[in-house]
């Protein structure tokens, strides 16, 4: 079991900055995120978009903001459980919590800070009536183990980078790769589109456009898909796997069942004090929370994270008095043994 002081659910900007503020208070953090990499929306949706309202950065790319935050918190050695979704929370008799992910990874923490943004990012599922019956039985929305597809027939659906990249990658592994897209044009990187064209010409990718998968065939597992190509009759393609890659959509997910007070898809918190939820010891910070006058801005998340950490410290150490120090005065002591501090002034008499 993973143990930590503060378990942060969500590794977006607010979650990452929480590690820094907690680190100043000598509190250890671990983060869980459903995405395979830190950064939340900034990494997943708009890494190349500039942000203009981060203090002291007239302009910064969302991806670079994530990179900088990771650099800033490195010294506090946070742990990460990535690619897993926080599923259940169990309060222990001593007031601590055990949070378990959808893959069964258990985390024991004194404090839980939900920094889940708009929620966990779930794959967008195509509108095929029986698709849920085949999930993990040949239908996969995320490719985790490419070896699973070795010498198998694969149908990929979608027109973005993921669909293109995986079609290219699997063309070397699978026995047959079919890429199906609703349009003739693809929105991915130009070199990926050209590579797919090249592989199509070589007969290594079967490209079907403009077309859509409208049905899935099989009993215990996928055996084929029904494809409708514009202007033609529907036809069947035999396949072992159907991989729809239509991006991700945020959902509040299992957190919504944790007994937290929810209002308009967000978690209600005590903003007058410390951003604690109705469950003592569980906080919600950043875009996932709501209170009168709430603004969903990254810089507000940073502020909320800072106040929340002070409250968490008092909850963990009720008898200790913490005196807030500026980092310009107290420096920063990393958990990795590093120390950052302002250079001392040299006082020297002149003869």
């Amino acid at each position, binding site marked *: 079991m993973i143990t930590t002081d503060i378990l942060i659910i969500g590794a977006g900007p607010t979650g990452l900055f929480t590690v820094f503020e907690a680190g100043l208070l000598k509190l250890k953090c671990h983060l869980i995120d459903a995405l395979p990499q830190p950064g939340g929306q900034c990494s997943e949706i708009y890494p190349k978009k500039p942000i203009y309202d981060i203090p002291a950065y007239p302009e910064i790319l969302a991806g670079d903001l994530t990179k900088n935050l990771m650099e800033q918190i490195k010294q506090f050695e946070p742990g990460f459980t990535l690619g897993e979704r926080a599923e259940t929370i169990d309060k222990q008799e001593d007031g601590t919590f055990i949070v378990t992910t959808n893959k069964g990874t258990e985390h024991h923490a004194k404090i839980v800070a939900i920094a889940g943004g708009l929620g966990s990012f779930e794959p967008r599922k195509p509108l095929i009536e029986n698709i849920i019956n085949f999930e993990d039985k040949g239908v996969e929305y995320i490719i985790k183990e490419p070896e699973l597809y070795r010498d198998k027939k694969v149908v990929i659906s979608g027109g973005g980078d993921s669909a293109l990249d995986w079609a290219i990658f699997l063309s070397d592994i699978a026995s047959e790769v079919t890429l199906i897209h609703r349009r003739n044009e693809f*929105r991915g990187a130009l070199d990926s589109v050209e590579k797919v064209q090249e592989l199509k010409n070589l007969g290594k990718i079967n490209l079907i456009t403009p077309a859509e998968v409208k049905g899935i065939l099989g009993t215990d597992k996928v055996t084929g898909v029904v494809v409708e190509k514009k202007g033609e009759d529907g036809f069947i393609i035999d396949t072992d796997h159907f991989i729809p890659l239509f991006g991700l959509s*945020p959902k509040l997910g299992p957190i919504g069942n944790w007994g937290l007070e929810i209002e308009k898809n967000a978690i209600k918190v005590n903003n007058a004090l410390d951003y604690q939820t109705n469950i003592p010891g569980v906080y919600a910070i950043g875009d996932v929370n709501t209170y009168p006058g709430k603004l969903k801005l990254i810089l507000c998340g940073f502020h909320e994270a800072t106040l929340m950490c002070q409250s968490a410290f008092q909850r963990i150490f009720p008898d200790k008095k913490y005196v807030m120090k500026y980092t310009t005065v107290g420096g920063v002591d990393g958990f990795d043994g590093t120390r950052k501090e302002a250079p001392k002034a040299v006082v020297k008499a002149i003869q």
Partner: protein
Amino acid sequence: MSLDVNLKITDRNGVTHDIVAPTDMAMNLMEVVRSYELAEEGTIGICGGMAMCASCQCYVKSNHELPEMSDDEDAMLAEAFYVEDNSRLGCQIQITPEINGLEVELAPES
């Protein structure tokens, strides 16, 4: 001259709302829908208005001449669900005097 325009927006429950929207606040249709709370918070404008999520997809019901689609909007609609010939992304439709009387219907949540 009035700085407001009148819009007819049909929500996801099929209810049509007559909305007055300002043209001098640099708003787009998705932001108007949010400000009038015509769709549940967290279900519209997820990407913040960057044509990257299609949560604000709507069907244009009137004959207004709208600005041409950008490549980003066109590409997003290529991957979205419930797309019809009259689909647009609300976040890409600016509130200008030219859209006075526009009638739209929000596409289902997906």
